[in-house]
């Protein structure tokens, strides 16, 4: 039943140290504004915890730093905004499917949210469709969500159009929530800037780029590549061209830098996930950046 989510959890425990997972928990706990002051219990301090939460008296008694935990005053909503266009069905930088990576990212963040008693909603979309799932706080809900993503993203699906999805999110999401945008190595356009800016004005936004595959043939890579938008293959002859490779490397470096810079100038924390092995670490960095960016 919980196939998708179990895979996410397995990946989390395989690729992340137990300590990292706890850290991830701690990071997630601290990214929300405004907490209640209803004391729940004490637990050991983890790096990333707010220093002001340390219960100094309890720490003095037990010789280990302890932090106070509070009952969340209200449930937060985490909205996962996922590009469901055919771009997401393409190959990621690691050679895995971008869809699998997107599901992993959505699963990890959703799972963290559910563990903290938050509710998770989904908004998917592309050039032709808008699909959403209402917020829910159960693992079964998250599992259904991941399956919807899996089913929606296909090679012969509609083209990707993330700007429109973000615009839709701006109009539709009234309640203040934490929005995680799961996109890829797209070009930072003016529309994107505008919609992200509006979204960020009302909500807290996190940006995750799923790294796209390298288009040049390196180190005797003989695979054929086909662009998902056009269905046209890239001739191997061109992919091995050395001058073109230099130009390509420079161009994608600039493209990534522009995306990163654009997102950062809006005050949005972003990270690029290139493989499932490094995904947990990347997400940890993302949460940390978000916490720091807020201060």
């Amino acid at each position, binding site marked *: 039943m919980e196939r998708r989510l179990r895979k996410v959890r397995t990946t989390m425990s395989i690729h992340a140290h137990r300590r990292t997972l706890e850290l991830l928990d701690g990071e997630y706990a601290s990214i929300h504004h405004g907490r209640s002051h209803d004391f729940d219990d004490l637990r050991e301090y983890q790096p990333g915890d707010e220093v002001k939460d340390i219960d100094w008296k309890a720490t003095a008694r037990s010789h280990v730093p302890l932090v106070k935990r509070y009952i969340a005053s209200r449930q937060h909503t985490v909205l996962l905004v996922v590009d469901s266009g*055919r*771009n*997401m*069905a*393409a*190959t990621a930088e690691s050679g895995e499917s*971008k869809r699998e990576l997107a599901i992993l990212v959505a699963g990890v963040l959703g799972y963290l949210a559910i563990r903290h008693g938050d509710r998770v909603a989904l908004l998917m979309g592309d050039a032709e469709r808008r699909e959403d799932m209402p917020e829910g706080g159960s693992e079964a809900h998250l599992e259904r969500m991941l399956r919807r993503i899996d089913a929606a993203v296909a*090679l012969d699906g509609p083209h*990707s159009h993330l700007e429109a999805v973000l615009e839709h999110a701006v109009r539709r999401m009234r309640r203040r929530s934490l929005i995680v945008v799961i996109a*890829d*190595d*797209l*070009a930072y356009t003016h529309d994107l800037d505008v919609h992200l800016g509006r979204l960020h004005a009302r909500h807290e936004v996190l940006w995750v780029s799923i790294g*796209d*595959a390298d*288009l*040049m043939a390196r180190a005797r890579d003989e*695979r*054929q*590549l*086909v*662009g*998902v*938008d*056009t*269905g*046209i*293959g*890239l*001739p*191997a*002859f*061109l992919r*091995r*061209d050395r*001058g*073109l490779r*230099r*130009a*390509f490397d420079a*161009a*994608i470096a600039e*493209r990534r830098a522009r995306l990163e810079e654009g997102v950062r100038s809006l005050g949005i924390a972003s990270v690029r996930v290139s493989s499932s092995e490094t995904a947990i670490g990347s997400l940890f960095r993302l949460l940390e950046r978000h916490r720091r960016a807020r201060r």
Partner: protein
Amino acid sequence: MDVTLLWPWALAALSAVALGLALVGLLLPRRRRDRGLPVAHVDRLTGLAAFRRALLRYRLWIAGALLASIGGAVVAGAVAARPSGVHANQEDDYKRDILLCLDVSGSMVDVDAEILRVYQQLASELDGERIGMRIFDASSVMAFPLTSDYDYIAAQLGRYERALTGTLGPDEQFNYLAGTANGLGASLVGDGLASCVLDFADLEASERPRSVILATDNVVNGQQIFTLPQAGQLAVDHEVRVYAINPFDWGGDMASQELRDVAEGTGGAYFPLDFAQTVPQIVDRVSAIEAGYIETPPRIQVVDRPGALPLAVLVVVGLVCAIAARARL
């Protein structure tokens, strides 16, 4: 050398096929969908100016390969059309065989030596002819059989010439008369000529013109098995022409007359060696007469002369392969 095409239609057909295939390949809509790993944001690459330049280069390579293929097909067509020329061929079968048949009785030694000297010179200019030599007195001995090994011929002729003139070197002494005195009598010309005629080893099989240079005075002294006319008949039977050289023609004596009749009866000639004719002149005339027999029209053959065209096809094919490997077509 003029070259004509035996099958000009082959050139036209192959050229047409090559052009047709190229046109079909260019004009036929591409139906297959490209296969491979799906990748997103291809515009990351295709949007680059460097990509457009590389694409242009790629297309130029393909165009070059196409042109080279068509060119190769046309050249291959030219080869298939069989460019050919006319070749005139003188067959070896019409090279003659010459047997020197020398009477080595005491009176003939000087003449023999001179004949040997002349043929020694001739041997260096021959090509395809075979020369053999037989000497006789009371009995005949083969000096050397018919051969076209001209070095060997010249060596043997020189050796006999020096033996006849008595100028053999100290380490090449031999008795050239050995074996020539086994019959009853001396100068048995009929037997000598008969054995010379039978020396043509492949009497039945060979088409080569045969001739015997017979040097004798026809002064027979003893009992011979073949008379001279009988030997002459044997020569006629085996199509051997006898050229007789007689140093002692006194004009109308019986022996000379008989020799003349026999020689001319075989289709050959008779030459008295007198003040009017020297041995070289006689040999020239023999060669001139024999030339009439040899002179057969050359065989006309049409032969393929593709010249460097197959090599060109090979080069073009290699070029196409190189481009294909370069551009991973």
